[in-house]
């Protein structure tokens, strides 16, 4: 009891501890609350949250690259694609129709890690020649990589299924040795823990477990000599090198770990959808994940997760539902006239909102960044940096720099 109280006292003012606690509680209660609120029809929302978890995983991974090591990666979706396609190749009938003529069905858990290591390898391969570049140049190279990889998958013909992609991937399974009360037994809101398309709660639970594991691992590495070296490289690469940090290999490590997380998320994504197509890995995915990290709070793990959750919610729930909501709001407010289509060009408010979806999205992003330039849940460092920038701007008007 005493220890609990001490723990509470120490963390009562720690924003990250509070965020973690709330996230754990939210994650645990979410399925039950959703099912209750929708009278048992909440499967769609649970599945939506499970998909959101994929973006949260990617945000955690990109936070290592951008937030910890300070490397701007604009082609992050490429590793997501590599993870997905790797999973698709080793866990479907597809290899059977390729010249190899022999399909592979690697068990889900092994295939997940194959996807992860392939993406990490691709990260190392891309990073080795390019991480000698600094700042903007690296951003441009990764941008190119992000464009090349999906096109490669699209045009690799029979190997990747071309434009339609690869279908009928193996769905996740629990390892054979895991048995429990839920196996073939009704178990409250986790009725039958099998990964089928109509049991989205199973995906949700698995997603939460995976995120928890990744958070612990990334947290550990951040608080080790490697995390410290990343910070140092971000702060001053020259000084880090003089102090004995092999800057190229430490950046390569950050890059590969980010790629591995993305590949891991990609493999899970493929398994969940049971389908991969090059259409799903465009530049917009890279940018969305980057926006999640920046908006959530660069360099802070719960910040990136929060950013991921918030942006995902806005993009995949709020914006699609907004037109209908606005319509009923207009009716309720006695402005039903707004809902009617006017032949002179007014398409009805629902249509209008739906058309300006991305304007609204942009406005929300701009609004959040104006209100909280440091991110929703910033790291201590980011807070300090912004404060100092303000102080310096006041103390010394901008001078011409040589």
């Amino acid at each position, binding site marked *: 009891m005493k220890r609990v109280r001490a723990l509470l006292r120490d963390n009562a003012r720690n924003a990250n501890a509070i965020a973690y606690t709330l996230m754990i509680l939210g994650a645990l209660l979410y399925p039950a609350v959703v099912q209750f609120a929708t009278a048992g029809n909440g499967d769609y929302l649970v599945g939506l949250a499970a998909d959101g978890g994929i973006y949260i995983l990617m945000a955690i991974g990109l936070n290592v690259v951008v937030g910890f090591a300070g490397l701007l990666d604009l082609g992050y979706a490429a590793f997501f694609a590599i993870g997905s396609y790797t999973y698709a190749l080793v866990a479907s009938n597809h290899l059977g129709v390729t010249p190899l003529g022999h399909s592979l069905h690697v068990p889900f858990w092994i295939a997940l890690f194959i996807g992860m290591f392939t993406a990490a390898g691709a990260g190392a391969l891309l990073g080795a020649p390019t991480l000698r570049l600094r700042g903007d140049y690296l951003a441009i190279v990764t941008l190119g990589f992000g464009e090349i990889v999906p096109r490669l998958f699209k045009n690799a013909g029979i190997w990747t299924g071309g434009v339609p992609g690869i279908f009928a991937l193996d769905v996740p399974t629990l390892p054979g040795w895991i048995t429990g009360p839920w196996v073939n037994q009704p178990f409250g809101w986790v009725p039958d823990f099998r990964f089928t398309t109509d049991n989205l709660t199973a995906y949700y639970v698995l997603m939460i477990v995976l995120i928890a594991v990744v958070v612990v691992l990334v947290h550990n590495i951040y608080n080790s000599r490697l995390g410290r070296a990343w910070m*140092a490289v971000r702060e001053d690469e*020259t000084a880090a090198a*003089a102090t004995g*940090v092999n800057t190229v290999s430490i950046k390569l490590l950050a890059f590969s770990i980010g790629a591995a997380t993305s590949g891991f998320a990609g493999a899970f994504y493929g398994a969940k959808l049971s389908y991969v197509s090059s259409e799903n890995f465009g530049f917009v995915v890279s940018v969305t994940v980057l926006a999640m990290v920046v908006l959530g709070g660069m360099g802070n793990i719960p910040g990136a997760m929060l950013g991921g959750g918030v942006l995902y919610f806005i993009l995949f729930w709020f914006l699609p539902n907004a037109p209908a909501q606005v319509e009923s709001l207009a009716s309720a407010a006695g402005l039903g006239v707004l809902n009617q289509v006017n032949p002179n060009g007014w398409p009805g408010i629902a249509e209008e909102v739906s058309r300006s979806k991305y304007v609204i999205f942009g406005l929300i992003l701009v609004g959040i960044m104006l209100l909280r330039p440091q991110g929703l849940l910033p790291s201590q460092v980011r807070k300090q940096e912004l404060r100092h920038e303000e102080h310096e701007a006041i103390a010394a008007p901008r001078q011409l720099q040589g």
Partner: protein
Amino acid sequence: MAAILRVNGLTKRFGGLVAVDNVSFDVEAGEVFALIGPNGAGKTTLFNCITGFFKPTLGHVVFGDKDLTGSPPHRTAKAGIARTFQNIRLFDYMSALDNVRLGHHCRMHAMLWDSLFKTPLERNEEREITEHSMELLALVGLEHQADNYARNLAYGQQRRLEIARALATSPKLLLLDEPAAGFNPQEKVELMDLVQTILRRGITVFLIEHDMRVVMQVSQRIVVLDHGEKIAEGPPVEVRNNQRVIEAYLGKSA
């Protein structure tokens, strides 16, 4: 005494400009060796060649029995050469303690696996280097600033923190680039004491310094550069009375 660092025929050209021109000297183990010269003489370029930031155009840098010519900076640091910078280069948004802890990086053994899973090896190593870092902070008189961001320290404290960080790499040779720049007389005395403490720990000190009082007091031998060339070498008294050195600093009398 044995030479710890041999610089042999070192030349560095940037296009047509010869920044360091065929310079040779030995730094002996256990001494304080100073490099002086007017502004733009090539002193910092020479430091950068020794620590691997520049690749020498010609010549060799031999440290102990290893040829370090052209090795990257992290390898020279691992070999045992630590340095500070003329314009202080700390990790601004890391605590003073973390700055020093980072200095241990190249002597640590925890691998990715250990970091990911917080193995006992990793935990023990972190504890040891944290203790050692606190000792080093105490050595430079910053033990009460451990949790402050480096950029929030006073100027003199930043200079000393940079020395502590360099010492954390467990060097055999410490290169100080103008350690007394911007110091008041009191701070200069403290710095000279610190140099003696470092020397007693068995670390050879090689410094660039403009303050002649500091140089003459603290160093056993001096080498003088002018326009990239070595114009004198020897004990302080000899160098002070060398005609070429006086001319380099004051100009030739007509």
